[in-house]
């Protein structure tokens, strides 16, 4: 029998194919490490920036109960950002560097957060639609090939399930309320529907990284597969609420056992990605401001810790 020496890369791929998780100190191809750092940090940045559009409404929530729920939810997003930065740090990336890349515009975050939140119904839509789309993206990531990322995602998904429910509950309350509330719900759905479909990324044909990511089992479904799943899930829920999805092309297709739906405005998609969304500047500006204004606080804590250490060593 002829024994074949497998290259490191082949051994690595064999482990991936056997669904054996990759752990921080294991050998991995540079490109795998880079792809993961890019994806995990983008994901973390999205959680961080994602706090802003909802954070917007914490001070204006219409009841004390809603205020508590919303604050707890936005706080969860901070937590999720933290779990993810922590996962990326196991790959040798520093949080400071990742934040610097976010602040300089080099690193991206989910474009959905560059849309404004204009009414209370937006809190419903963000929870119901945006978090719904996020969950579809995230659940497969619980089985992603890199161990720390998969474990972070298990924690995120566990916590995320209340987010979508509270969003749906807000929508339901509005739809069962006064006419002005139902109008508010429909108006918000009209604005959020298309941007949410964009969350799944470009069409498979225009997504050059998908094949490699699928091969490495970082990604487990293509963009178009997830988008279809989302529409199939959401159209009946909108019907339940008595709302109309703002796409005249939505129609049940028995042959494919799913809905047909219209095409996303890809020009808008690429423009928002490039930084031309309504809120790109504000969102990034808010993050940079928080980081810069926090610098003296972080320095003070370090300086104090150093003084204490010094004193302890003198005793």
């Amino acid at each position, binding site marked *: 029998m002829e024994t074949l020496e497998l290259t490191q890369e082949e051994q690595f791929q064999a482990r991936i194919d056997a669904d054996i998780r990759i752990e921080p100190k294991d050998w991995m191809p540079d490109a795998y490490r880079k792809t993961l750092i890019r994806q995990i940090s983008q994901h973390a940045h999205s959680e961080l920036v994602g706090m802003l559009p909802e954070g917007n409404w914490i001070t204006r929530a219409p009841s*004390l109960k*809603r205020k508590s729920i919303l604050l707890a939810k936005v*706080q969860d997003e901070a937590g999720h*950002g*933290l779990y993810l930065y922590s996962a990326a740090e196991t790959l040798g990336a520093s949080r400071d560097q990742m934040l610097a890349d976010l602040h300089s515009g080099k690193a991206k975050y989910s474009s959905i957060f560059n849309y404004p939140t204009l009414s209370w119904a937006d809190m419903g839509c963000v929870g119901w639609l945006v978090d719904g789309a996020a969950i579809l993206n995230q659940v497969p990531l619980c089985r992603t090939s890199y161990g720390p990322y998969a474990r972070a995602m298990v924690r995120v998904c566990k916590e995320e399930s209340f987010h979508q429910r509270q969003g749906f509950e807000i929508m339901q309350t509005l739809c069962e309320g006064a006419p002005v*509330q139902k109008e508010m719900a429909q108006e918000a759905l009209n604005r959020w529907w298309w941007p949410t479909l964009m969350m799944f990324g470009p069409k498979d044909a225009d997504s050059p990284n998908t094949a490699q990511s699928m091969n490495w089992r970082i990604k487990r479904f293509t963009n178009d597969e997830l988008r279809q799943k989302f529409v199939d899930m959401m159209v009946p829920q909108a019907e339940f609420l008595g709302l109309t999805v703002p796409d005249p092309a939505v129609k049940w297709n028995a042959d494919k056992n799913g809905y047909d739906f219209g095409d996303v405005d890809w020009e808008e998609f690429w423009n928002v990605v490039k930084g031309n969304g309504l809120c790109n500047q504000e969102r990034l500006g808010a993050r940079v401001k928080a980081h810069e204004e*926090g*610098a003296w606080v972080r*320095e*003070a804590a370090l300086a104090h810790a150093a003084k204490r250490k010094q004193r302890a060593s003198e005793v």
Partner: protein
Amino acid sequence: MQVAPPTTHTPETQTQLFRYVLQLADTSLILAHRLSEWCGHGPILEQDLALANIALDFLGEARSYYQYAAELEGQGRTEDDLAYLRSAVEYRNPLLVEQPNGDFAATIVRQFIYDTFHYHLLQQLQAGPDTQLAAIAEKSVKEAAYHLKWSSEWIIRLGDGTEESRRRVEQAIASLWRYAGELTTPNATEKELQAAGLVPDYAAMLPQMEAHVARVFEEATLPVPQGVFMQKGGKDGRHTEHLGYLLTELQYMQRTYPGLTW
């Protein structure tokens, strides 16, 4: 939460107690609201979470007080009616908690002053004769102990950190210390309830509070402010200009769409 039956009071005491519980509710809500403004803007992610946790504690405490106040009043008002449909002159929170967040040092100083009072107050209230108030206090005092630890440690870090942090924390103390006195200066309602034994004697709490401040400030290498002229009025509805703006935002939905359920 209530194992012991609710305490019964005379109608006069009940009215005073309603006012006092409302004052506690307003105080917790306004402080929670201010802290929640930090969400997404904290100096580091870990502290963003800490600030939100503290805000959630105060929000929970506020809701318990509002619910109890509504019960004491017996007019069928809900926690939301009390929070969202009263104007600034009807709000009874002390001036301290409505002060804007400012920089992190101002938030910490405001928090430290209130936590010092809050923790010692709840310690007394949990042993007080009103079973419902005692039950709320018993739950909240654990949270307050953690808040006090958090804000005390930050005072120490900022005071004994860098030159800049020291300058900022000194500035915050200079602008906020004048609101500390109101916390332990009883208004008419508190005086009556103190006489009835329902509200603790603030004067008796002071030595412990002062000892805590002295210990923390010493470690922070900060001088304890002396001879500051103390402002007051919030507990009687005379506020600083900041509260009006805060309530405009807080009450926006309920005022714009009256009478709806959300």
